[in-house]
């Protein structure tokens, strides 16, 4: 366990908000609970401490599955237990009590939510014998979340990146889970209601909402993941001092459509705090620099991108990369850094490409110049005619009222690119055209889709290229298609 946080302003929470009372029946002080447990004026209770806590945190939803274990002595017969969670964000419908390895000799008879005490429940537990047993309480809480972020530092030549991935856990749940084993789930689960909403409901009202389907969906989705083998789920394991000298390992494993990150050892994240841990480091990831003009994706500007692969050859590829913010910098060769961008990336599966948009580069000038316009292949539609007679003469004039109904419009363009970056660059351009279009050029273009042309070029250092092309648009009567056709000049 790492040392706690040096914060003299921090209030030490003296009393846990989540309280588990084992109400031991000690006659004559306690009247045993029948089918419904009720609070009496005179109680004797014990407060068993948590032995271990496991948090499974989902980043796609405001949802954390908490699994805690405690050890309790049961007497033979009925044992009333009280569980309360004042000022937390626990979903009362999700609280479950289980007895690992003791399913045959101990069972929950009933669960009661008292009408006058919100955020509390009673269990009546039947034990076949007097025994000590490990119990496992699990529930959903909102307010704990995690997010991924990355720091990428390129070498001065921009041929390699040092890429560090981090996970950041935020605890706003109202509860401090001490020495918890933390598991982070990458992937989207289906929820039909939000835990944060359910946590606000008094337990008595929960029954109104609590339909079997809803519970089924939620429990199945989240609990399935909980059953994944944990890297370590020992009872409050504390790491050796020597091991603390190393950043914690974050074990990653696949589970169906999901990925689970298990943080080595245990963590204590006080309520209100956030903690950031390194999830991976790749020291020398090959990177390619490409310039792209794709208005649909990047807006109406030429942008520079770092392209890298999430694969083992790049020093990555062991895990999908969750969506998160990437801060990209470049080493300036004198020990310092230059800031490049800070952008969100979407989830990157193993084997997929990471495309990091660095924004426009002022050292590359990208201009589209229209060189010429002309029209041909003009068709007239005959709309009838009129005969005109000049007064005082026999002259007759026939005026046929024709109107332009179809024409081809030719536009010649130069896509001019000037490169002042100090090294050759690759530029890829995509342009979309609506209507019946012929794209005529010597650029060896490709069709990206039926209306989008893609062409690329290399621009030498301190060089300029003019990518000449002609766009022929068939209009009116001439328009027979809605697609782009490629043609050699």
């Amino acid at each position, binding site marked *: *366990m*790492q*040392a*706690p*946080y*040096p*914060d*003299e*302003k*921090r209030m*030490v929470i003296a009393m846990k908000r989540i309280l588990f009372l084992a109400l031991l029946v000690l006659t004559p002080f306690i009247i045993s609970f029948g089918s419904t447990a009720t609070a009496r004026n005179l109680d004797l209770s014990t407060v068993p401490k948590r032995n271990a806590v496991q948090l499974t945190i989902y980043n796609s939803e405001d949802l954390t599955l908490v699994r805690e274990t405690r050890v309790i002595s049961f007497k033979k017969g009925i044992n009333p237990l009280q569980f309360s969670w004042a000022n937390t964000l626990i979903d009362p419908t999700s609280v479950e009590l289980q007895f690992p390895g003791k399913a045959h000799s101990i069972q929950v008879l009933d669960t009661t939510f008292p009408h006058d005490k919100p955020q509390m429940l009673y269990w009546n537990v039947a034990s076949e014998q007097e025994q000590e047993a490990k119990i496992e309480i699990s529930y959903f809480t909102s307010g704990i979340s995690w997010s991924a*972020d990355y720091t990428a530092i390129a070498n001065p030549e921009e041929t390699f990146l040092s890429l560090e991935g981090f996970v950041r856990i935020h605890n706003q749940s109202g509860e401090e889970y001490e020495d918890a084993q933390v598991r982070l789930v990458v992937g989207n689960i289906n929820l039909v209601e939000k835990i944060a909403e359910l946590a606000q409901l008094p337990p008595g009202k929960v029954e109104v909402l609590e339909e079997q389907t809803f519970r089924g969906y939620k429990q199945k989705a989240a609990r399935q993941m909980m059953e994944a083998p944990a890297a370590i789920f020992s009872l409050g394991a*504390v790491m050796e*001092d020597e091991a*603390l*000298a*190393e*950043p914690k390992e974050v074990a990653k494993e696949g589970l169906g459509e999901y990925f689970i990150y298990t943080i080595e050892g245990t963590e204590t994240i*006080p*309520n*209100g*705090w*956030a*903690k*950031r*841990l*390194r999830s991976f480091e790749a020291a020398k990831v090959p990177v390619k620099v490409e310039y792209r003009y794709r208005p649909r994706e990047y807006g109406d500007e030429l942008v520079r991108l770092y392209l890298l692969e999430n694969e083992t050859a790049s020093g990555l590829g062991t895990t999908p990369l969750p969506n998160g*913010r990437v*801060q990209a*910098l470049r080493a300036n060769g004198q*020990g*310092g*850094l*230059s*800031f*490049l961008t*800070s952008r969100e990336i979407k989830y990157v599966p193993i084997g997929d490409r990471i495309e990091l948009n660095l924004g426009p580069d*002022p*050292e590359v*000038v990208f201009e589209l*110049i*229209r*060189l*010429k*316009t*002309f*029209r041909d292949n*003009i068709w*007239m539609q005959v709309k009838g005619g009129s005969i005109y007679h000049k007064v005082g003469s026999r002259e007759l004039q026939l005026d046929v*009222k*024709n*109107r*332009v109904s179809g*024409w081809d*419009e030719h*536009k*010649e363009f130069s896509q001019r690119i*000037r490169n*002042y970056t100090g090294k050759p660059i690759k530029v890829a351009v995509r342009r979309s055209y609506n209507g019946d279009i012929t794209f005529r050029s010597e650029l060896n273009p490709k069709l990206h889709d039926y209306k989008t042309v893609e062409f690329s070029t290399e621009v030498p250092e301190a060089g*300029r290229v003019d990518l000449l092309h002609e766009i022929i648009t068939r209009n009116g009567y001439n328009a027979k298609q809605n697609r782009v056709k490629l043609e050699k000049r």
Partner: protein
Amino acid sequence: MINISRPHVIFALLFLALPIVPLEAWARIKLITLPVRERVEIQLDHPQATLVEEERIVPLVKGINQVDFSWANTRISPDSLIFRVLNTSETPDQAVKVLSVSYPPNENSLVWAVSSPHSGSAQVRISYILDGLEKEFHYRATATHDEKKLNLAQYLRLKNLANEEYKESSISVGFGDQLTRSVGIDETKDLLVTRYPEVMVRKTYTADLAQYGYLDAAKKKLKIPMHYVLKNDTTNGLGKASLPFGKTRIFQEDGHGGTAFVGEDWGKFTPQDDEMSLYLGVARDIVVKRTIDRNERKRINGNLYDYDLIVKYEIENFKESPVTLDIGETLRELRAELGYQNQRDVECELGPETTLLGKPDAEKSDADHLLFHVDLPAKKPESKPDKQICKLHILMKNEW
């Protein structure tokens, strides 16, 4: 962790007696060192962000060290903070490492947990994006008396609204030399970035109705703005880097050892090989009268027409020096001027009656805008200038 009355970035190192201390212990006895900044670099090379890098010598004890960084009332982006240990020649298992970062609630601070395999000093570099340290560029241009050259000084104006003082900091704008200056809280500093002593300058006079309008619409006299045009290339004394956007104050040597202020303009962002045009005012001694001399419609078929146009320019140069006049025409505007409105591009050809010498400027003309250069001889003293008449014959084709 430390109450401070003035806004400041605080960097504190907490020596731990034990690697594991109960939470409550933090509220009581502790020893803190405050490593000072050894070096600061302010990187202003990004158009939207300022990156500050600080180097500090941090005494570390063997084991885990808590390094606290707080920035009360300073606009640091917490997600941008990077902590790097420099000059680590050790093998990985002997290196100083960052284990985790913790973020306390409702505070501008964070705590790095740093493990060190041995006691001793480590040189660390902390980088972060800082809001409020704003930059802008401006220029001072002094033209020679004959207006052939400029002495161009480029300045960086740094406004420190970040609520943090940076002493003896190395400031880089991405080009030119690094500057070393102190920047106090709420200070504005002007720093000379670079000086271009001999920039070739071209003074232009432009007649372009669409761009600049009339001086006297009733008499069809065009406004003739004057510009200093600087080409950003090495041939013309520039070309080291793009010129950032900024205000340019223009002075001219008066021929008596002094200078006169002749105006100011916003210089646009100018990549290399592009031109920066600085507006000087309206020329009064070059008169250009522009008229549409011919407007004939030729019916091709039905509602399909060609238009035969002649734009005539009557030009007088009252200056006793020769000048070059730039004449510009925007074809869509010309078509609209004649009352023909549509959304199609203009298909046009130059007609044989054009008397403007030479072809349109190939670099500065395109399918919709034509630019010609006309040399105007100097006016002879004590005489009226010769009136030059130039015609632009345009055939607008396939209009309906």
